[in-house]
């Protein structure tokens, strides 16, 4: 009798832990989607990927270690699914040549605006569409780190774990990826101006 009741207590505790896990995971869904949207190639892919991620997370919730970063854990699942499903079809990598320097975009924008000096106003010359399409033109390896660190607000360490790459690689891809992004933005401005 005592054994049956301790089993019941254990089951109830397990159910409670699972419900808590599911609730915590669902509370992060918005943030997971925001990142997934730009790791995936399209909105549809992102939605599917997030659903697969949650289905897997709910099934294997026991492998999550409470107290660790749940958002990073979910993104790790999502990244692996994205790779497994071959969703990382690469566009032609536009990586030939150097991606200019870090001041390049500002100089380009300021010069095409007759020496406009207010930095915040210079940024506003870029439309939302310019930014979204420039980001999607950044090759995946670089885009993944930009999306995780600059958009998802993950630390270098978390990004390294999610992508299963060394932290030094995260830093170098981020540095280079941001330059590629700025080059893409400069090109979109040049096209609009021509």
């Amino acid at each position, binding site marked *: 009798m005592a054994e049956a009741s301790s089993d019941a207590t254990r089951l109830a505790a397990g159910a409670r832990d699972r419900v808590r896990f599911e609730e915590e995971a669902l509370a992060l869904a918005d943030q997971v989607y*925001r990142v997934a949207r730009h790791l995936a190639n399209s909105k549809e892919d992102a939605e599917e990927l997030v659903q697969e991620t949650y289905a897997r997370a709910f099934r294997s919730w026991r492998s999550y270690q409470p107290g660790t970063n749940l958002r990073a854990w979910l993104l790790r699942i999502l990244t692996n699914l994205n790779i497994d499903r071959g969703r990382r079809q690469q566009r032609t990598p536009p990586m030939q040549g150097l991606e200019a320097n*870090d001041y390049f975009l500002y100089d380009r924008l300021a010069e095409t605006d007759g020496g406009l*000096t207010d930095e915040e106003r210079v940024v506003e010359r870029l439309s939302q569409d310019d930014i979204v399409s420039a980001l999607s033109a950044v090759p995946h390896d670089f885009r993944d780190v930009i999306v995780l660190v600059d958009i998802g607000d993950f630390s270098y360490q978390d990004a390294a774990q999610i992508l299963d790459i060394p932290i030094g690689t995260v830093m170098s891809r981020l540095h280079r990826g941001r330059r590629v992004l700025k080059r893409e933005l400069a090109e979109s401005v040049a096209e609009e101006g021509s």
Partner: protein
Amino acid sequence: MGHIDDPCSHCEEMMQPYLDHILSEEEMREAEHHLDECEWCRKRYRFEESLRVYVRTAVSEPMPAALKEKLAALRIPLN
């Protein structure tokens, strides 16, 4: 302005690590000292800072409400 090996091109190299807060204290002081004196670089740092915020805002799409419901439906029912 912006010539190779001048303080501005060095400052440019330090911009990303500066904004990521990963410079050593000494490098940080060095960058700040230059930025105090050089409006040319200061503008470009401010631009980069605004750009990061702008990019983050521009690409942030809220999750579709229907997806939220689909995710909730994936929960494993209690027996």
